[in-house]
């Protein structure tokens, strides 16, 4: 898999911490591998919306990658609940169901961005940099992947 210049937290230079939420183990592993190539760290994983809320409260990740269609509680509702409790939460919806209604609903309820599956690493990388804004810093080439 392609290696990217590491994206770090600008406040302390530490790895960006992610919460990955998807009911598919395959999808979670795939996203985790991509995050590693961005120099990030998986803080926690969840297989449904309810677990995502408790894992967010427990780990306070910098970014949440959230699927939409999941058992127990779907991703859009989970995103809304997380943002209500933590307005600073940065949630990126990652779903194969990318029709306009879904995207608009997710953004209206607090998600910062939407990435359609199959996820292209270069697209996710750009979205993460955009969503982090000034709170993220791209390491120079020499420091990439360190």
């Amino acid at each position, binding site marked *: 898999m392609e290696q990217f210049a590491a994206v770090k937290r600008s406040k302390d230079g530490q790895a960006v911490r992610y919460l990955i939420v998807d009911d598919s183990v395959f999808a979670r592993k795939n996203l985790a591998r991509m995050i590693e190539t961005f120099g990030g760290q998986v803080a926690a994983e969840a297989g449904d919306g309810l677990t995502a809320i408790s894992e967010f409260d427990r780990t306070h990740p910098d970014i949440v990658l959230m699927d939409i269609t999941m058992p127990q509680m779907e991703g859009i509702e989970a995103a809304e609940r997380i943002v209500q409790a933590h307005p600073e939460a940065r949630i990126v919806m990652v779903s*194969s169901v990318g029709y306009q209604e879904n995207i608009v609903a997710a953004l209206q309820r607090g998600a910062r961005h939407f990435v359609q599956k199959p996820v292209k690493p270069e697209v996710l990388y750009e979205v993460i940099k955009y969503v982090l804004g000034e709170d993220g810093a791209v390491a120079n080439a020499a420091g990439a992947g360190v």
Partner: protein
Amino acid sequence: MPQERESKSMKMELIQPFINAADAVLSQGLSGKTKVEGLTMEVHAYRRKGVAGMIALTGDIEGRIVLDMEPQTAVKVASHYAGAELPESDSLIKETIFELANQVVGNAISALNDQGFHFRVHPPLLLTAQEGDKTSEDTEALEICFETAMGNVYMNVALRYNKRRMADHAAMGA
């Protein structure tokens, strides 16, 4: 006869987004070109090739999509995604087929939804029986074989318009 042609052509409009989506998902995921090797109408009951995941759709259009691979192809594909050689018994193989099926269906229904069709996508199921239900009279089943560098991937699409839902929409629009 003209009426029959019209009906088949309408159904191809439903099926084409699934072919496009499968082509995109497989070529991106398997890092290589895919080629539609065969396209056949299914007249008999569905026969599983190996590891097969099925996703049912309900709503304005209903039916099911099966993504199916011979066991050795499924192992190669799952190992490619995992980045490591997986044994044939690994549960990630099933998960990989499910996720690929989800991505194909998700991408296809996104295109159809933007055309005004509404669906509910059901969770993927593993097909374990050798033979599935026989295609019903008004459900067109099309089997598409995608040739990939890792072996053939089969997609079987059986969809039909939900006439009651379509009539309800028409009545509301009238």
